[in-house]
């Protein structure tokens, strides 16, 4: 059966790595299920112990899925295999995630769920999709930033509302316009690409916000817990103080009740007259009691231990005593003043059993408050202790002169059944942490209050330090952010500059160095591109230059050729026409003129033939069809042959060895070379100046032929090009020929495997050296001329 060819999927290395990693984890879990089922049950199935019955199946499923995941991670497999495996793995992972969720193992549940999503993503997020994801992420980022901006704008508008409500229009307008500007900013400013400075600023701002935000949250959390601890400690202390005061009050209450009861039961109080009673009372003393007094059964005063005016027993107290017929207590005033006082009163009975009167111990509340205050001062400095009656009315305040005396706690609910408790309250702008204790025996409550500001002073101090640290951290993170941003942005900036420069055809701008792989990649690519561009441009420029040069050389050659060829033709034709004209006129032609004209015609046509030969030679050389027909001959003979034909041979001095100098060469071609060298030597020398021809043998073995003149020499700027086509070293002073002689000479010598080079001796003139391979004279030599 034919199957469709496997369509390879394009997954990133990260996706493959994830598949392999998750696969390994699956295999390990599966192995655990098979080998150590208990651990597996605890780790994965926890509350569903009964699922453990299928343990081998779980194990096998896990191992199989793991194996498949590893396989798709490692191998090039088709889309279907990847999808199937990933879906199986994801379903299993979601299942386990759900199991862990029901076991309330939140972290595990999230981990498994995320892994499931990652496995799906790895399967369905190939390289191309990864790029799409980048796009989506960008859109998402924009949406988030839009929402954030709108929220910020609305918040600013919200901040302005209170100002508007209190008709502070300037402030309101400021807030409103700021808010509107923030919301509408992108609409007001045309969208522009992010400048690199903007990127820097954003990165720095983000670093600072993240660092500061984290620090602020941490500081707040730490401060909140420190505050809670401090307040808790303070409340515990207050509770202790309140309880102590309550105990003292209870003790004091029973003590004073006992005191007055004892006084009332003193035998015969009823029988004593006013003076006797007074004497008795004056004999008594007790702490905090400023006076003792007695009253009759109607509450009218009988006697006092001090000199204060006699005042009847307050009606409220009398009423209570009549009802209870036992010792009691009540609030009154110090007689003759408005100062509050506390009266402990006990009835005394007559012999008949009826109430005959009352005996009272009077306590100054102010004094009592001082006593309570003394108790409170054992606790924290600054503690205020209040005693409230059943209605919540303050009875005692420990330090009436202190400013805290005015700051009474709010009334406690009298029905509050709890005996102790704590509360925080605010009076006159100051907040207090307070503890209260009810004193059931007295129907009173004791409240011990401590200013919250004192409690939080330590925490506040810590907060100030934290704020300092926050500023420092923000500054440091801004610096760090700038540094990091610069590390990313600066190379991009430099790279951008280099690109701008390249656009302006500057190719030497230094490129940034960065240790960021992506920037390195960009820089590397750009550098390679720039190099290629430069190379290509140079190449093109060179090609263009050489093409232009070729055209220039061709044009110049055309011009030279026209001149050089037409000149001998003009002369030949002119002389021929001159003779013809004379013949037509029937004149007798002067023999001297006839001879002269014919000689001119002859020499000009020879010159023309030489020029045409040169052109033909160049054409042959260019087409590679200049044939060398070598033969073995003596170079001395060549020199002789050349000199024989020259009219200027008297100027030429030849030095040659006695023995033959044999070469395998084309005699005619070498004759051409030597003639050309001698022509040049003569042409560029002063008249009658000597030209030397030297022939010798050198190591190699090489036959060396040199032609040395004492003429103009070759100017340095021409030396490099002297053997090139159409090159004329003295075109300005000696116009003749195509500039092809040395070119042809060199080509011929090189075709003989020889070399030709040129020297400019310091004494002036020119030395041309031709080296040709030498053949031993011992070789059988047959002289042939090709």
């Amino acid at each position: 059966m034919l199957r469709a060819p496997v369509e390879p999927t394009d997954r990133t290395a990260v996706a493959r790595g994830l598949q392999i990693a998750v696969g390994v984890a699956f295999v390990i879990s599966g192995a655990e299920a098979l080998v150590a089922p208990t651990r597996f049950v605890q780790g994965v199935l926890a509350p569903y112990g009964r699922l453990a019955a299928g343990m081998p199946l779980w194990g096998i499923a896990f191992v199989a899925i793991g194996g498949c995941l590893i396989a798709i991670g490692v191998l090039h497999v088709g889309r279907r295999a990847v999808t199937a495996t990933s879906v199986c793995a994801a379903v299993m992972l979601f299942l386990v995630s759900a199991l862990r969720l029901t076991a309330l193992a939140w972290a595990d549940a999230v981990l498994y769920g995320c892994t499931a999503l990652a496995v799906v993503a790895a399967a369905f997020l190939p390289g191309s999709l990864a790029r799409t994801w980048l796009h989506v992420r960008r859109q998402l980022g924009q949406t988030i930033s839009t929402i954030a901006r709108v929220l910020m704008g609305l918040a600013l508008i919200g901040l302005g509302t209170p100002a508007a409500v209190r008709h502070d229009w300037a402030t309101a307008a400021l807030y409103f316009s700021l808010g509107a500007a923030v919301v509408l900013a992108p609409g007001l400013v045309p969208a522009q690409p992010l400048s690199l400075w903007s990127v820097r600023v954003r990165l720095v701002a983000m670093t600072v916000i993240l660092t500061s935000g984290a620090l602020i949250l941490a500081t707040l959390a730490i401060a909140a817990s420190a505050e809670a601890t401090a307040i808790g400690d303070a409340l515990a202390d207050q509770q202790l103080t309140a309880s102590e005061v309550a105990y003292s009050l209870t003790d004091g209450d029973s003590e004073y009740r006992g005191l007055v009861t004892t006084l009332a039961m003193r035998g015969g109080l009823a029988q004593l007259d006013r003076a006797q009673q007074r004497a008795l009372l004056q004999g008594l003393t007790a702490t905090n009691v400023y006076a003792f007094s007695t009253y009759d059964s109607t509450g009218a005063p009988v006697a006092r231990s001090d000199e204060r005016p006699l005042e009847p027993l307050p009606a409220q107290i009398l009423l209570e005593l009549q009802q209870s017929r036992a010792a009691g207590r009540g609030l009154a005033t110090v007689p003759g003043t408005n100062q509050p006082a506390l009266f402990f009163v006990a009835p005394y009975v007559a012999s008949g059993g009826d109430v005959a009167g009352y005996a009272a111990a009077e306590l100054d509340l102010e004094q009592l408050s001082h006593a309570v205050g003394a108790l409170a001062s054992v606790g924290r400095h600054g503690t205020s202790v209040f005693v409230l009656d059943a209605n919540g009315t303050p009875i005692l305040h420990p330090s009436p002169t202190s400013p805290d005396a005015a700051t009474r706690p709010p009334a406690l609910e009298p029905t509050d059944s709890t005996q102790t408790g704590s509360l925080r309250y605010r009076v006159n702008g100051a907040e207090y942490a307070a503890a209260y204790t009810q004193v059931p025996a007295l129907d009173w409550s004791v409240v011990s209050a401590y200013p919250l500001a004192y409690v939080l002073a330590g925490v506040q101090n810590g907060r100030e330090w934290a704020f300092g640290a926050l500023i420092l951290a923000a500054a440091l993170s801004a610096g760090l952010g700038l540094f990091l941003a610069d590390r990313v942005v600066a190379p991009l900036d430099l790279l951008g500059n280099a690109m701008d420069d390249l656009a302006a055809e500057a190719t030497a701008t230094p490129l940034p160095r960065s240790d960021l792989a992506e920037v390195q990649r960009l820089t590397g690519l750009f550098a390679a591109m720039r190099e290629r561009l430069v190379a290509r441009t140079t190449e093109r420029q060179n090609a263009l230059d050489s093409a232009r040069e070729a055209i220039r050389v061709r044009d110049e050659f055309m011009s030279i050729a026209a001149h050089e060829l037409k000149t001998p033709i003009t002369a030949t034709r002119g002389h021929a026409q001159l003779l013809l004209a004379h013949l037509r006129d029937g004149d007798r032609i002067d023999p001297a003129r006839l001879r002269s004209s014919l000689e001119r015609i002859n020499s000009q046509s020879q010159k023309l033939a030489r020029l045409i030969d040169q052109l033909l030679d160049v054409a042959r050389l260019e087409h590679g069809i200049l044939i060398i027909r070598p033969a073995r001959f003596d170079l001395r003979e060549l020199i002789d042959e050349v000199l024989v034909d020259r009219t200027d041979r008297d100027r030429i001095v030849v030095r040659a060895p006695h023995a033959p100098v044999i070469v395998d060469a084309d005699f005619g071609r070498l004759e051409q070379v030597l003639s050309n060298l001698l022509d040049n030597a003569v042409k560029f020398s002063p008249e009658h100046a000597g030209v030397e021809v030297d022939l010798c043998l050198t190591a190699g073995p090489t036959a060396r032929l040199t032609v040395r003149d004492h003429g103009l020499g070759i100017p340095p700027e021409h030396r490099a090009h002297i053997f090139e086509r159409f090159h004329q070293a003295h075109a300005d002073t000696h116009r003749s020929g195509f500039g092809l002689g040395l070119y042809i000479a060199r080509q011929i010598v090189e075709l003989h495997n020889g070399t030709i080079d040129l020297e400019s001796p310091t004494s002036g003139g020119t030395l041309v050296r031709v080296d040709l391979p030498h053949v031993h004279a011992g070789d059988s030599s047959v002289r042939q001329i090709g």
Partner: protein
Amino acid sequence: MLRSASPNRERVLIVEDDDGIRSFVTAVLEDAGYEVMEAANGVEALQHIEQQSPEAILLDMKMPVMDGWTFAARYRANSEQRAPIIVMTAAHDARARAHEVDATDVLGKPFDITDLLTTVARVLRERR
């Protein structure tokens, strides 16, 4: 035809580096009755002119030492010298060459001796 020269011996200066051409042009013009001065380049020509000013100048353009352009410029720079110039050139754009040096006429190489004679005669006639 060669004898149809004007009797008052007008002076013609020929400036040409190639002696093959120079010699036949000289012969033709002398046969026609002109007085001919020969110069192998611009420098020599200027030296001749200093001594005797010609009525017409036959000028080759490409010459060593001093070419036709330089010579013409030097010659024109001296306002007294206004003899017509006839350019002899092998260039294919002979008229352009003539225009470059403000020549009166032009002879394209190779030229016939009849052309030479009629041109010189015409130029001298126009000058008169």
